[in-house]
C-alpha cells in the first residue's frame, strides 16, 4: 500500500488547519478502540469472577447436565443451551431470507414514493419494547399457534419428527417466531442500506450486458453487499441470542430438553431472568456461568458465520484509506 506524498498548495493547507494531523487522528481512533476493548474486558472479568465459585465447587461437567434443579445441587445447562440454539436458529432461518427479500424489495422494487414510508414502518418494529412482544405473543399469538398454526404444521411436516407431542401455545416455535419478528427490523434496515450503496456503474454495466433483474442482484449487488449483509446477520443473530423478557413469556420455561418444536423449552437468558432475583450462592454463580456459556456460543456462531462468508470468497469493498 503506497501513500501519496504531495506538496500541499496554500489554500488546501488553510482548510487543513482545522483537521488533526494524521497521527493525531489515528491516535484518537486507537484510543476509542482501546476504550471499547477495555470495556469488553471489564465485562468479561466481572462475569468470570462471579462465575468462578460455581466452577471451583462443581468442576466443569455440570454445564452439560440435563437437569436444572438447584435444590438438589443440579445445575445442568444442556436444556437451555439447546433451547437457545434452537430458538435462535428458527428466528434466523426465518429472518435471513425474509429480511433480505424485504430489503431487496425496499431497495429496488418498491416505488420510490412509498419507499420511505414502508422503511419507517419496518423500523417501527424495533421500537416495541421486549415486554410488549412478550405480552402480545402470550395473549394473541399463543392461542393462534395452538389452535391453527401448529395443527397445520404438524399435518404437513409431522414426518420430520420435529412436531411431535401436543399442541402448545407457548413453545420453542412461538419463541422462535417472536424472535424472528424482533430481529426483522435489524436485518431489513441494515441490508437495505448496504444494497443501496452498491456502485451504480456495476449495476448498469450488468444490465447493459443483458442480465435480468435477478441476475443483476445475484451476480453484482449481493456479492458487493456481502460484508454488509453479514453485519446485518450478525447483529440480528446477536439480538436473538440475547433476548430475555419476551422469550421468557412465550417459551414455556420448561427446564427439560425439548423434544419437539411444539414443546415448552427455555433459553439461557430466560433462565437468568427468571432465577436471578432470588438466587444466591452456588446458584447465582451458576447463572453467571450460564452467561459465560452464552458468550462462548455467541463466539462460535460468529466464527461460523465469518468462515462461511470468507470461504465462499469475497472482495472487501472497504474504504481503504490507508494501511
Amino acid at each position, binding site marked *: 500500500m503506497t501513500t*501519496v506524498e*504531495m506538496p500541499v498548495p496554500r489554500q*488546501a493547507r488553510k482548510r487543513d488547519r482545522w483537521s*488533526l494531523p494524521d497521527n493525531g*487522528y*489515528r491516535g*484518537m*481512533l486507537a484510543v*476509542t478502540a482501546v476504550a*471499547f*476493548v477495555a470495556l*469488553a474486558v471489564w*465485562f468479561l472479568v*466481572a*462475569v468470570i469472577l462471579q462465575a468462578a465459585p460455581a466452577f471451583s465447587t462443581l468442576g466443569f461437567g455440570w454445564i452439560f447436565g440435563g437437569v436444572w434443579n438447584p435444590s438438589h445441587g443440579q445445575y445442568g445447562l444442556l436444556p437451555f443451551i439447546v433451547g437457545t440454539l434452537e430458538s435462535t436458529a428458527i428466528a434466523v432461518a426465518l429472518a435471513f*431470507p425474509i429480511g433480505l427479500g*424485504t430489503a431487496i424489495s*425496499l431497495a429496488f*422494487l*418498491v416505488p420510490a414514493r412509498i419507499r*420511505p414510508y414502508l422503511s*419507517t*414502518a419496518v*423500523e*417501527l418494529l*424495533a*421500537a416495541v*419494547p*421486549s*415486554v*410488549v412482544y412478550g405480552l402480545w405473543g402470550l395473549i*394473541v399469538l399463543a392461542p393462534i399457534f395452538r389452535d391453527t398454526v401448529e395443527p397445520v404444521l404438524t399435518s404437513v411436516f409431522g414426518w420430520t419428527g420435529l412436531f411431535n407431542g401436543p399442541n402448545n401455545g407457548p413453545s420453542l416455535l412461538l419463541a422462535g417466531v417472536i424472535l424472528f419478528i424482533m430481529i426483522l427490523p435489524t436485518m*431489513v*434496515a441494515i441490508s437495505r442500506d448496504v444494497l*443501496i*450503496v452498491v456502485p451504480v456503474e456495476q449495476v448498469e454495466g450488468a444490465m447493459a450486458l*443483458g442480465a*435480468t*433483474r*435477478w441476475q443483476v442482484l445475484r451476480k453484482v449487488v449481493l456479492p458487493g453487499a456481502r460484508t*454488509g449483509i453479514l*453485519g*446485518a446477520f*450478525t*447483529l440480528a443473530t*446477536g*439480538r436473538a*441470542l*440475547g433476548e430475555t423478557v419476551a422469550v421468557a413469556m412465550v417459551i414455556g420455561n420448561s427446564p427439560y430438553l425439548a423434544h419437539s418444536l411444539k414443546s415448552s423449552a427455555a433459553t439461557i*437468558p430466560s433462565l437468568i*431472568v427468571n432465577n*436471578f432475583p432470588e438466587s444466591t450462592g452456588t446458584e447465582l454463580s451458576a447463572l453467571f456461568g450460564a*452467561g459465560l456459556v452464552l*458468550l462462548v456460543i*455467541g463466539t462460535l456462531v460468529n466464527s461460523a458465520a465469518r468462515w462461511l462468508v470468507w470461504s465462499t470468497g469475497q472482495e*472487501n469493498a472497504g*474504504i481503504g*484509506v*490507508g*494501511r
Partner: protein
Amino acid sequence: MTAVLDVPVDPNVERRLAVQAAASSSLRRRKMGSVVAMGVCWLFLAIAIVPLVAVVVYVTSKGLSAWTTDFFTKSTTPEGVAGGGVWNAIVGTVVITTIATAVAVPLGLLCGLFLAESDGRAAQALRFTADVMTGIPSITVGIFGYIAIVRNFGYSGLAGSFAVGFIMLPVIIRAGETAFRGVPRSLNEAAMALGARRATIARRVVVPTALPGVITGVLLAIARGLGETAPLLLTIFGNQYLQWNPTKPMAALPTLIYSYSGQPYADLVQVAWGAALLLMAVVLVLSIGSRLLAAYLRKERR
C-alpha cells in the same frame, strides 16, 4: 432489455436462427427466473408487513385510550388515584437515553471508522468482540451494571445509562462500520490524490457519504435503547416521583411498562399500553426526522 448478439455474418442461416433461438429461450428462462425471484421478494415484503401491522394495531388499540393530557403531564399515581400519568417516566427515559446516546454514538462511530479503515489483527479482534457483544443477554448487561455501578454508587439514572449504552455500543460500531465501508474507494483515493489528511477525508468524504447508513444504525440503536427493559430493571430502581437528577433513582418507560403490565388492575395495565404506544410514536418521529435530516443533508451537498 433484449440481448443483442453480435453474430458474424454466416452464410448458414439455419445456424444463425438456431443460435438466436437458443439465446431467446435462454432469455425467456432467465426472465422467468427473475420474475419468480422478484415475486418471492414481494412475498417476503408482504410477510414482513403482517406482524408489523398486527403489533402496531394491537398496541394502538390498547394504548390509545390512555393518551390523555394527564398521561403526558402528570407523574405516576397509584391504583385508585385518578389523574396520574407517566411524565416522570418520560423524563427518566429521555435523560437516560440521551446520556447513553451522547456517549455511545461518538465512541461507537469512531470505533466504526477505525474498523472500516484497517483490516489488521487488532481490527479483526475488535470487530469480533463487537459482534460477540451484540449477543450478550440484556439481563446480563443489567447485572453487570448492577455489579459495576450500583454496588459502588447506588441506584441511579447514570447506572441505567451505562447499561443501555453498553447495549447500544456494539450496534453502533457494527452498523457504523458497515456504512463507512460502503463509501466507494474511488472517492477516498480522489481525496488522497488531492492531498487531504486522513482526518479531513473522514470528516468531509467518508462520514457525509455514509451518513444515511450511519443514521439508520444510530436510529436502530436508539430504538433499542429506548425499549430495553432488563438493563434498567437492575440499575435505575425506579421512582414514583419526578426526578431530573441522573445521579438518583429514576423512572423509565420500559420498566414502567414491565411493572404495570404485570398488575391486576385494568387501569394500570392500560397506562402500560399507553406508554408502549408512546415509545413507538417516539421512534416513529425519530425515524421520520432522521430521513428528513438525511435528505436535507444530501441536498445541501449537491
